[in-house]
């Protein structure tokens, strides 16, 4: 039988243990606050510096030697074109690889190697992809320092993200759906194209957006392939100029992108360029936040509306 003295001892121990609980809770909240605070300070500081600089002219001007005339026209156009190449090459490839690994791959050493390899690729620093592209796309294939080289580089970089996202969304589909389809006499491809892909498309889209958001902000591999930092012209539009440009001439044009423009301005000593850097950074963060936010929202909706 428990004596009163023992009970008091137990209560003293619990009180002490709970004090540690409370201490840790506070430590946890504090640590979270470090992250929240840093992000807030970063965003607000950049907004204070950069937002006054955001004007119509800032978006429609080329970079300039004079900070107050400089703008991000070539940068945002370049970013969009590069992203287009990236999406067009990475999405089909990544989704196809994900589908193969989930629906077709037999359990053997080839599959093992592919799987280990993909997780390994995800861990390779982005600048190494830049070196690969420099050796392969720029010189070996002769694409030069072009939109095509940059787009393909970023495509390789986000390929693992898309493959993993595809596999996870496919895995979320219950086995019964597969069996239902096969029981109707469907072939593997019919099962994939009629059921698996449509049902997992929202999840795949989420992964694609996250991958693209990462690609938009990547600077190092693009610098490595030798993207120029001062581009005061746009790639020629299809059929424009004289003689008329071809449909895909822009793809081999030199270019710059948002993060490179920001890097360029950040490394200038003059304060006026720092303001430009802040403005470009604000636009860049806004773009990535919007994309990540969209992905998070999509995933939230998806989880809420799950039907099986």
């Amino acid at each position, binding site marked *: 039988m428990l004596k009163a003295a023992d009970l008091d001892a137990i209560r003293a121990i619990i009180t002490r243990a709970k004090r540690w609980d409370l201490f*840790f809770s506070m430590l946890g909240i504090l640590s979270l606050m*470090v992250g929240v605070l840093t992000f807030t300070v970063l965003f607000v500081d950049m907004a204070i510096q950069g937002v006054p600089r955001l004007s119509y002219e800032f978006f429609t001007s080329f970079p300039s030697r004079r900070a107050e005339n400089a703008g991000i026209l070539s940068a945002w156009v370049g970013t969009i074109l590069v992203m287009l190449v990236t999406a067009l090459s990475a999405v089909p490839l990544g989704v*196809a*690889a994900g589908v193969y690994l989930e629906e077709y791959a037999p359990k053997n050493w080839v599959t093992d190697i592919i799987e280990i390899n993909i997780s390994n690729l995800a861990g390779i620093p*982005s600048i*190494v992809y830049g070196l690969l592209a420099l050796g392969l796309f720029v010189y070996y294939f002769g694409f030069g320092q072009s939109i095509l080289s940059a787009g393909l580089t970023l495509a390789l970089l986000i390929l693992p993200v898309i493959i993993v996202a595809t596999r996870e969304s496919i895995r979320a589909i219950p086995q019964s759906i597969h069996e239902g389809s096969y029981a109707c006499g469907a072939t593997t491809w019919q099962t994939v194209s009629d059921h698996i892909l449509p049902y997992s498309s929202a999840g795949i889209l989420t992964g694609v957006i996250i991958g693209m958001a990462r690609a938009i902000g990547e600077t190092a591999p693009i610098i490595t392939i030798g993207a120029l930092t001062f581009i005061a012209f746009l790639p020629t539009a299809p059929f424009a100029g004289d003689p008329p440009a071809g449909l895909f001439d822009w793809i081999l044009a030199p270019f710059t992108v948002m993060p490179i423009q920001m890097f360029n301005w950040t490394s200038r000593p003059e304060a006026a360029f720092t303001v430009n850097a802040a403005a470009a950074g604000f636009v860049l963060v806004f773009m990535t936040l919007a994309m*990540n936010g969209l992905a998070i929202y999509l995933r939230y909706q998806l989880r809420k509306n799950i039907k099986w």
Partner: protein
Amino acid sequence: MTASASHPSQPLPLGSGISDRLSKKASRHVKERIIEGLLFSAAAFSVFVTIAIVYVLVKESWVFFETVPLSDFLFDTQWTPLFDDAHYGIMVLLSGTLTSSAVALLVAIPLGTIIAIYLSEFAGFKVREIAKPFLELLGGVPTIVYGYFALTFLTPILQTIYPDLPGFNLLSAGLVMGIMIIPYVASLSEDAMRAVPMSLREGSYAMGATRLQTALWVVTPAATSGIASAYILGISRAVGETMILAVAAGMQPNLTFNPTEPGATITSYIVQVALGDLPHGSIGYQTIFAAGLTLLLMTLFFNLLGYWLRKRFREVY
């Protein structure tokens, strides 16, 4: 999915042939095989990417090492590849990489672990639902922006505390890099902790343990391998991070382990050379591939270590 089941032998007389309607359609079969082949090539493509990376880096480094002996590369204490009196001591760049990574990990590992434990074991559903996406956003900010933040915001603040701190320094870059890595460490560690089955927690609580006791004595040990691979991912992020260092740490090679000095890392050196105008095929051009190969080997080592840890210490619940 493609496996076919064997059918029990039937006492009925076997048909002499297969009826037309049940026979495999050759055309359908061929189409399926072609599609499977295409999908397989997409998956196998990733292997070619790896091979291409290794090939390009080794090929260019090979030329480099024909000029520069490996011993110089490993043991020389100067890195001046672009001077007339060229030295190629990778140690100089490694010291920058290690110093900045150490600073970053001193921030990211404790904070990331505390956040993971807090979110997994202490925080309510609501807090977790808000905090996790927020951490994801934090991890999604482009690193060039973090670099800008380190250079224009953190360094001036640090300078009010240490007036001698130079405008470019490894400390400021490392600290911001640490904050950038927190989400990776926190989110992967939290996943590992949440994978610990509830029955273990209940066992601990049923003995009268508090939340902290359960978290530190039962959940964390049970999730060790997952947490370790989160740390390893953090390390390889730190080692491979480029832009924060290129912007905020200066790019002058400096053999130092003192974070208050400026320094170049393997990654920021590559950026510096790429920004310049080195002719293709020159020895300066090849140095970046040798540096890149060093970086690849380091991250490969960490990746394999993480893979091995997961295999070796896979939790058996």
